[in-house]
Structures are given as C-alpha cells and as structure tokens.
C-alpha cells in the first residue's frame, strides 16, 4: 500500500432549509444539540477524525445554506466531494419532494467523474417529533432510495441522537471507498452496492 498519508474525506450535506443539517453535523461531531442554531449563511464545515476499518481518516463535513438560491455558489466547495448527504424532514413533505433536485443539482455542480456511482446517503431527520406529525413514511422514503440506485437511508433525530453515529459511519465508509476509487483513478463502479444491511437497520427505529 501507499504511504500512510492522511486521508481527508469531503462530505457535503444538502437539503431544504430548516431540516436540521447543522444540527445533525453538530450532533455527530460535538455530541450536542441546540434548538437555536442560526440559519446557515454561506458555508461552514466541521471536521472529525474517525476510524474506518482501522484506517484513520478525517471527515470534513460541509454545511450549506438550505435556501435553494444560494446553491449557485456551491461550486466553490462541492469540488472534490467524496460523498453527498441529502437530508429531509420526515414531518415536511416539501423537503422530501426536493431531494431529487438536490441530488441533480449536486451532480451538475460537483461533476464527479462517474455520476452513476457517486455515493449519496439520505437522512430523514426529526423522527423525534412523533408519529402524529410525520408525513413521510419509512416505506415511501425507502422506495425512493431504492429507485435511485439503492441509496443508503437512515431515519435520524439530531435532537435525541438517534441513528446519527450509525448514519455517519456509513457515510464515512462510502466516502472512503469513493476517495480510493478516485485515487487509483480506476473504475470500480460496484463500490456503491454495499451496506444494504445497514440500510435496514437504519429504518428499524
């Protein structure tokens, strides 16, 4: 293997405003939740060092403004992404409906070498709000993810730290696989086909 140079995994978190992107990131990195994160303006990121299969990697998680018009500036930081996390709010159908356009927009702007195999992960956040508030069922979300080529799907609560670590573990793994496939500059299109097991686990909350 090559020398143990540090691996930096760049992860972009996208989704409508107010679905909890900043909160998810902070819950994962800082184990904290605050109800009063201000609306993100521009972009920011947090980093976290994690072990993926005994390899120490640094995840750089990019948080962006959710309102769609600010995304046209995204190109500045989408470049070189290793994984894209799409977040929606299970209590807000609009935020689910827009997932597809977030995905398309990302692929256009980041223009990864092989868009078909680029790893995405979908997170349905705010599952803590209760079933009566919920408008997007697990089934519907899972079906969407299946249809998009088996995107791993997790239902999370940034507030109550439900499934957050599990989701980001998969994100890290998929990002690492992507990074390595880029590194060797070869085509291993099958890297995406992993983690269906995790997928199931994620939905079982």
């Amino acid at each position: 293997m090559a020398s143990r140079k540090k691996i930096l995994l760049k992860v972009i978190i996208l989704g409508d405003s107010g679905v909890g992107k900043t909160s998810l990131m902070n819950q994962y990195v800082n184990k904290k939740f605050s109800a009063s994160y201000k609306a993100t303006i521009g972009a920011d990121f947090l980093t976290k060092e994690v072990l993926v299969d005994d390899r120490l990697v640094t995840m750089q998680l990019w948080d962006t403004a959710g309102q769609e018009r600010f995304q046209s500036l995204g190109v500045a930081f989408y470049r070189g992404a290793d994984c894209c996390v799409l977040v929606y709010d299970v209590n807000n159908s609009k935020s689910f409906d827009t997932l597809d356009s977030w995905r398309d927009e990302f692929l256009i702007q980041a223009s990864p070498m092989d868009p078909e195999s680029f790893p995405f992960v979908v997170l349905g956040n705010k599952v803590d709000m209760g079933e009566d508030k919920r408008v997007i069922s697990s089934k519907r979300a899972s079906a969407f993810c299946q249809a998009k080529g088996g995107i791993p799907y997790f239902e999370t609560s940034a507030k109550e730290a439900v499934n957050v670590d599990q989701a980001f573990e998969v994100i890290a793994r998929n990002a690492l696989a992507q990074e390595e496939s880029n590194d060797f500059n070869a085509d291993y299109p099958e890297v995406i086909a992993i983690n269906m097991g995790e997928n199931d686990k994620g939905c079982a909350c």
Partner: protein
Amino acid sequence: MATPPTDSRPSTSGSPSSPYSPTASFYDMSDDEEGEYSTIRAAKSEKGVKLLYTKSKTYIHPSASAKDNVPGYIALIQQKPGNGPNVSSPPSSPVASSSTRRTAETANILLAWVPESSMGDARDIYNKVEQAGSSSPPKQSQLVPPPPVTTSHNAGLGTYPFAVPVSDIFSILVRPPSAGWWFGSIVINTRGGDSFPALFFHDSECQSTIDQRKKLQRENFSISTEGGGMFWGGDEIMRWLKRYTVVERSSQEPSIYLIDPNEVDKLGFGTGGKPSSDKVRNVLEGKHKDEPAQSQWQNVEDPVVKVLKQARWSFLEKMSQVTTFTRRTAQAVAENKNLPPQVRRLMQDPQVQTVSEEFDSARLYLARWAMGIAEQSEKERSQRVWSAKEALEMEDSEVGQFEILDVDAQGLSLADKRKPVTLKEWNGFFNSRTGSLEKTPDEVKERIFHGGLDEEDGVRKEAWLFLLGVYEWNSTKEERHAKMNSLRDEYIRLKGAWWERMVDEQGTLEEREWWKEQKMRIEKDVHRTDRHIPIFAGEDIPHPDLDSPFAESGTNVHLEQMKDMLLTYNEYNRDLGYVQGMSDLLAPIYAVEQDDAVAFWGFVGFMERMERNFLRDQSGMRLQLLTLDHLVQLLDPKLYAHLAKLDSTNFFFFFRMLLVWFKREFEFSAILRLWEGLWTDSLSSNFHLFIAVAILEKHRNVIIEHLHGFDEVLKYVNELSGTIDLPSTIVRAESLFRRFQRTVESIDRKSNFPAAPLPRQRLPQPPPVTRPGSNGRPRQPSSSDANGSGSTSARERTTVGDHVAAGIGAGKEETRVISSELRALLSREIPKLDKTEVREHGGGVGS
C-alpha cells in the same frame, strides 16, 4: 450521566419561562436597609441578596460555535446569614453529610453565574461591584435579585442563571488559558456529583481583569501570578473563595482545587476506590472513551472522573472544530516576531509541543491565540481608548503604511468627531418650531458616520428613520407626522392583504404553494434569529398556529411581530419575497424601533439597497465579491497572490459578511453602530467592502503564513466571528478608503493617455477568462445557473469582461486601469436595483 434537574431551576425544554428579571420591589430597597436582605432560598424573593464580588465576560459555550456563546457574570453572593444550609444535597451524595467543617457561613455564600440577557437593570449594580475590585468586599451592601439556587444542572444549560452554595461545591476544575484552551475556564463540581458547564473567561473583553493585570504589572513588573502563568479571570475567582473557605489544590491532579475538603475527600481523591493517577491518565488519553461497558467507570459516580471525561472531551471538541492543518510545527508560530515573550516561552514548553504535534489543528488555535494575546496587550497599552493614531500604529501590514488622518476642516478634533451623537445634539440639528433640518444632510451624516448615535437615549429611534430613507432629510415635523400616518395605514393594508390570501387560499396553486413555503421559512428563521437578545428571548405565549413546528415550545409577542413584518414584506415585494438572511436584517431595526409598522418601513428602506444580495441569480453578491477581489488586488497584492495560490480569490469566505452586513460577526450592539455608519454613505455607498478589507488586512499575516487551503481560509474567517474589534476596524476601513481614493487618482493621472475606461465599459470577452495569478483556472463558474437555464445576467457579463486593476503580474505601470467595479466604490449613490431587474431575477412569485 444527566441528573434530573432540581425543582429550583426552570426546565429548559417545553415549559415556557420568561426571562429572569428583578421584581419591582427589589428596586425599592436602599443601601441603608443592609441586613434586611432575604434568604436566597425563597424562589420568588421580594428582596435582593448581597453581591460580594463579580466578574463580567464569563461565558458559557453551549455549542462549538462562538456565535452561541452566552456572556454572563460570575459572582460571589451572600444571602442573609443564619439560615443554615439552604439546599439539601441529594441523599445519595456520599460526602455531604460527613463534612465537618461546613459552616453556616459557606452555606450562605453562593457562587453564581448570571447571563447578561437576564440581568435587566441589576447589571448596573454588577458593574459597580466589579469595578470596585476585589481587594475587599464592598463596604456598602450591593443588593441584586437572587439567582435560583441549584446543586445540579441539566444538559441544556446556558441561558439561565444559577447559584451554587459554596458548601455544596466539592471541587473546581481550573483551566488557565493555555495553548489548547483558547480561554481559561473553570468547572464547578458539586458534592452531589454534578458538574456545571465550563465557565469561560474572555479576559480580553473583561475590563476588571485587564485592570487587575495592569495593577499587577505596576506593582510587580509582571502580569504573572505567583504560580507563573499569566494572571487571568479564574485566579480572581479562587481568590474570592479563599476568603470564605478552605481551598486546597489536589496533589493528584493539579488543575483540581478541592473546596473545604474533609479527610474523606482528601483520602478519596488520593487513593482507594477513587481514581488513581493511572485512571486519570486513562481518561485523559481516552483509553476508555466511548466504552460504556466498562462497568468500573459507569458505576462510580465520581465527580472527578466525570470532570476529567468532560475536560478531555471538550479539548478534543475544540480541536475538531478546526480543519486539517498542513504539516507545520508550533515552531513556525513561535518564530512570528509579533509574539509577546510569554507566548513564545509557552510555545517552547515540551507539553505544548506535544499537543501541537498530535493535533494538526492545534496550530491554528495557537496562531489565533497568539494573535489574540498580541492584540490584547496592544489594547492594554492604549487603555481601550481607540484613536486613529493608535489603531494605525499597531498596523503591521503592507497596507499599514497609512498616514494619520488629519483633523478635519471644521476643526473638530478626532476625539470629538468620534463622540456619539446624543438626542440633544440631534434635536439641535433641527429647527425647534418647524422641525426642519438646519444643517446639510451631509454634515449630519458625516457626524453619524464618525461618532455613531448614542446607545442609551433613544436618538436611534428617530435618526434611523432618516438614515433608512423613511423620512426625507428636508421634511418638516408636520410632513413627517403625516408620512408616518399614511405609512401606518399602508402597513395595515399590506398585512391584511396576505392575511386574506392565507385565509381565502387565493391565487394559483403555484402561488399558494409559494406562500405556504415562505410562511414556513419565515417561521423557522424567526425562531432562530437573535434569540439571545432580551426582546426575542423566551416563550411566554402559546403559539397561535398549532401546525407550526414550534407549537409546543410556544412563542413571544416580538417573534410574532417579526413574522408579520416579514410576511408583509413578502407581500410588499413579491418579486423577491422573503429570503434567508432578511430576518437578520430586520431584527436590529425592530429592536430599536419597537413598533412593527415603523420598523417595517425602516426595513423596506434598508432592503432597497440590500435587495441585490438576495436575487435568485446571486448576481449582486457576485458583483460584490468580484469588487472585493479587485480591491484586494489593488491594495494588497501580496495577500492577493497568496489567496490566488489557495484558489480563494472567489472570496466566498466573505459571503456571509457581505450578505447580512457582518451581522454574524459582531455583537448585536456593535451591529447597530456599524450599520448606522454604513447607512450614511458618507465616503462610499459600498463602505462595507472597506470594512471587509479592513478585517482581512488585520489577519493578513496569519493568512499568508499559516493558511494553506481554501478550506482553511474559510474556516479561519468564519471563526473570526465574535473576535473583531469594531472601532479600530472602522478606523482602518476609513484609512483604506482614503488610500484607495489616492491610488485611483494617481493611476488616473498617469494613465491620462489613453483615458481611463468609462464605467461599465465592455471589453471583448475571451472565454474562459483567466485572471492574473489565479493559477490559470477560470475563476467564475459562469454556466451554472441554479435553474440550469444557462442565462447569465447582464451585470455578470459586464463584470467578467472588465479590466481589473492590475496589481500583480501585469507588468508595467502604464497598463494599470481601474475597473468599473472599483470606480463604483467612489460613488455615494446607493446601488438600487430597478424594478424590472428584481422582477427578472428576484425569484419571488411575481418574477
């Protein structure tokens, strides 16, 4: 880990709780009623408790982001003696009952923390006591409202005051400011086994610490304490406590100070079942981190272990906020000639070196910390009174060769110019009978630009309406009255219009969807805008809309007003509509005006110039970022070359600052001062870009020497939030403007032949545009319109094609040309969009 909250503290979730404020009867007390102060036990005490010592600028950091930091006062408080222990420790507490030396006195002394937002008028008393210093307790009793007594905390703490009886404190973890810890902090551990959140001492903001340091320096020619470290806020707290109780430093773990320890405590901390030094090390090294199965750790409810866990965790957390920093040693930082000697010494400390080798990111902290120290010692020297001269003397940049601004033509000295305009002075500008302005608007604006408006006397309420264009400068009192009346009517009409729209579900499906979405967006944003400001804090009324995600947490009347105003703006300007960031722009105006109709029209005035920031195609933001690019290229070619190397000349890291005019970078009160200056257009209607360059210049050395990637620059600049000194920044920005002005003049003179291009001249456009020094990459993503429509606005086409003021790599002087973007900076005309442009690019329902 979490202990249920005791009943003495309001729960942080769910139950509505209004901000803590003194009761009316509290003010009725006078100093000669000493001895009458009541016991702090009574939750709804009618009277105050005695404030012995206090220190301001003590923060709780509830999240990783500096934006969330909650400023407050730490205080030592005495309640009426003789009441015995007022809070019983939890029954499970292993040591509380065995303490033999607990006296009634320590039970009546409380260590408290009160957030600024909940102090109300009591803040004056706190300030008075703080200024009185700590050489002895105040001679007169200074009474303040009692903070709620507690011996435990729960996770969401940060906005509520608390007071812990000293007799209930088991130990205090003391972390002086050092390489890893940006700020010094203390953590209170109770006998019940609870740890309070760390209180961070922002010493550079705290006048009393600065004064004490100065005093030490005068007396001992050193700003260090006996222990060797630099004097800091936490030293002071330990000094207070030592006056009332026994404080013993732990031999096991020198950062732990045991409070009034009995034999059991000491023994427990040393050997036996309690953590040995090995265990302590394990925790510090994270051997058992995230391993709940380690029953040994789970079952022992030992406060020390808990604290150590927390300590390690928050250290790592600090580190994790920073990006990977390319391989450079602390040595590089230490070599920086700007470092004060004490920092350089510290850098050579082997422990510090280990830390910085282990964590790449530590270096960024070291760099910034060093910068902070250097800045602070400068401030001490100038005694926090900023004059242009002092601010410029400390400049250490290539742009720093400023001349001292002359005393202006009217003969006002700088000090006079920079005095705030009071209501009295303001009223003096107007004819007392007709209310017409008797000076020129420019005179008034220039006065406000340099001095700002008085914070306290309400002059802003009136003056802002002129600055925001609600009132004409040449109007009479009567005319203004009439105008306001009709504006009020218009506000009500507009408000009614969207209200009906909602109720009747008018319009096409698309329109209805848009309104629903906008309403939701506004709802979400208002609930997270400036909630630390007293008028927006707390929830004390039920939410009117049960479908709102905030239905359970409730709301308050000012939040509801904010929502109404923003929805009304959405109605008023349907071509643009509400866009994120606007709530940040409205909040200060509303906080000043405190009247929804008036604030609304002030906001409308502000938005006229800010509209361009919010267009769907982002052309207005791109133009400003491009102008910034040209400006830095002209004024600081060396910095520009570095940024170009890092692929950072898109200046995206200034996006937030430009979008909402530095709202997220400065404290609320500073924003009021900054904005009113910018609204005057006194030098340039784009003066905010000079503020941006002034901020950048301040950090140019750190950026050039230590930052090696776009991500590092972005992170560094984002984290400047809350650290920027406004007065000196304004002075620097003004100097930069003057310098810019002179540079343009001299270039124009030189390049008289051929003549300088006219503004907005379009040159042949060779795609892709490669700019000097930008690594040969095209710098503007030109094709990616959000809609994929591929159309770029006229504005964008113009800017991309224009010549740039050739700063670097462009060869001979003769070729230097000032771009139209730069030339526009000399204008004082507010850049307003015309309606058709908003319709085309606004992205609202009308466009």
